[in-house]
């Protein structure tokens, strides 16, 4: 039976009436009209559906929306602050780190979560952090380059 669920997405709280078991991904795309999180595998195995849940990179294609109540959800769209892109987004654009780009959401979300906890990661740490996200085009070298650039950008801030 549909229930009233309260979600906080990109800083805005909203109540929706929905089946509590419905995975968050569908709510984000359908109720919030967001594009960042995407359906990839439907099994929490590819990372296309990732969001930041209390700053942690989290899968959304299976996990019920009700379990996200009381959690700060940040999607790709919510990374920009005051009209300024997040340094990770800027770095991905500058590095042109995408072929088809379908995995970009998971890559950027994972990179943001990594740099939040570890502002100067090694190449190995970057690889480990991006490992849950699958890219089929083979753009990995660019992603690593982009995260390194983002790390520089963040650390050079006054």
């Amino acid at each position, binding site marked *: 039976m549909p229930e009233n669920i309260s979600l906080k997405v990109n800083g805005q709280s909203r109540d929706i009436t929905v089946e509590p078991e419905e995975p968050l991904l569908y709510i984000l795309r359908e109720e919030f009209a967001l594009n960042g999180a995407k*359906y990839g595998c439907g099994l929490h195995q*590819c990372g296309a559906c990732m969001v930041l849940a209390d700053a942690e990179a989290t899968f959304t294609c299976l996990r019920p929306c009700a379990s996200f109540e009381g959690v700060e959800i940040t999607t790709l769209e919510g990374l920009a602050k005051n009209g300024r892109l997040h340094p990770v987004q800027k770095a991905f654009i500058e590095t042109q780190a*995408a072929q088809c780009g379908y995995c*970009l959401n998971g890559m950027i979300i994972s990179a943001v979560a990594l740099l939040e906890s570890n502002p100067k990661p090694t190449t190995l740490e970057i690889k480990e952090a991006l490992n849950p996200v699958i890219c089929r085009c083979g753009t990995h070298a660019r992603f690593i380059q982009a995260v390194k650039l983002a790390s520089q950008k963040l650390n050079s801030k006054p």
Partner: protein
Amino acid sequence: MIDQHLTDSSRRSFLRTTGHLMIGFNLLPLAYCQSKGAENEILDYPGIPVRPHIDPKLIDSWIRLDAEGYLTVLSGKQELGQGIKIALIQIAAEELDISPDRCRIINSDTGQTPNEGYTAGSNSVEGSGKAIRNAAAEARMYLLKMAGEKWNTSPSSLSVKNGIITSPNGDEISYWKLLEGKFIEGNVTGEAVPKKPQDYQYVGRPLLRDDIERMAKGEAHFIHDLRMPGMLHARVLHPPSYSARLESLDFSQVEAIPGVVKVIQNGSFVAVVAEREYQAVKAWQKMKSLAVWKKSSIDKLPDQLHDSIKNTSGNPEEIQMSPGIAEVHKNAAIRHEAEYFRPYQMHASMGPSCSIAVWEEKGLTVWTATQGVYPVRATLAELFSLEETQIRCIGVPGSGCYGHNGADDVSGEAALIAKQLPGKPIRLQWMREDEHKWEPYGTAMAFQISAALNTSGELVAWDTKIWSDSHSTRPNGRAGSFISARHLEPAVEFRKGGFSGGSYRNGIPEYTIPAKQLQLYNYAGPLRTSSLRGLGAYGNTFAMESFLDELIHKAGKDPIDFRIKNLEDPRAKAVLETLAEKTAWNSRQKTGNNGFGIAYSRYKNSTSYFAVLAEVEIDKSSKTY
């Protein structure tokens, strides 16, 4: 970016001046072309109005200068993540001397772009780029002629900078002011001489793809991101195997699921339509658990595949024969023979195939991530017995396009479903398992190579045998190419792809060898196969270059030096020399714990050059080998 170049003509007057060209084209899905705010940002094109493609000979079919001060490029090739949007814009901007940020592009839409077949074979810049370059050069010549007449001066005395023509007397006029919203009434005659490469200012520079920025911000980009008013969500219940038939399914249990709008059955083609996407997923899960299928067993299991392919009956195709090659082999100093095998390969695109279709009184519109909007339109026309002019296929980028994946099939299925719910845009997205089970695979292949060196260490013979299924099952106007057509009632017989040159792409070595021979065994395997990244080139190159390393090792030679000495093309040599330099090959540590693999290839033996070094190290402490 408002500037002084704009003419006074409004979009409205522009429409009026071009109105006659819209007559006869009655399938403008205007309801979906007009902006619905951010929801429809992919479709809302702020430049030129929609107008049907008439003739590729018209300049205007490729290049349009609109009333608002922009250049619009039209291309029949689709953006697949290879970056052709910006590449083609650069080409047009270059010839016309317009800043690329004043240029836009429309790709792949049977309602307005030229028919350029499939976006395949790494041909887009070569093909579409050439057409756009010629049209843009012609447009520039036309505009300079107009300005010359206006100022009574020779066109050759005029110069252009960012779309503004300047005369020796200092007169200035922009392209847009000159045209006043009218069309360039000219053909691509070939008389215009394109710019010389040394004069390029935009081509050859790595300009940024603006779609990457959109994606990084989470803006709508993919076909998956399209949202339309009244849109419903669909899922298809594919059978468990190609030839399975539906025996029973209690539809009443599916129809009872909240949100389900319609359950569709046509023979063994079963689909569900719901208001919300997750409701469609739930209904699909229910249908999957309820459906009873009549299945036949699969006749070749993976461990039987190698023997099956090698036992292909019939005579091989003789692609290149070298009589007397056996004799050369017999008299050679060093001989080597080896076999390689490649299993079936998936595209396995990260986003499952997706399409949106809507049936209206006037016809069918399909938003599709296909590589070929015109071929898909022709195929839909056959499937539904419609005239092609009653169908419009609009290309929208999909996920991970490496060839013929499920994008065409899902478009056909979306149209089949939408037909049952006229007026409703139907968004069909495959489930992950649909993608892996139902996409056309890259075929399994086997390779057998034997080669020989003479006493001077020169290659004297190279004999290749290839076993391969089809590399092309793309829909080209035959409804049987759509995977679901065989499940309909009456069934449309599945159309297998023809065997083609794709199998031996890059199969004949470029190396200098007096006797080269290649034979191809066409294998009819158990799975549907079609185009996947380079067709046969990937398997052939892997086999050929692995084999060459083995042969060189046997001869005790250096693998890079040997390749350079056995190639004639200076660019081929240069790419290997660059590889040696970049990897510090000559001073590289060769400890015995590490091994190296070298490969060189020129795609299709005619396009890009490539060389790679792979280093593999044995970590003896972590595992026993």
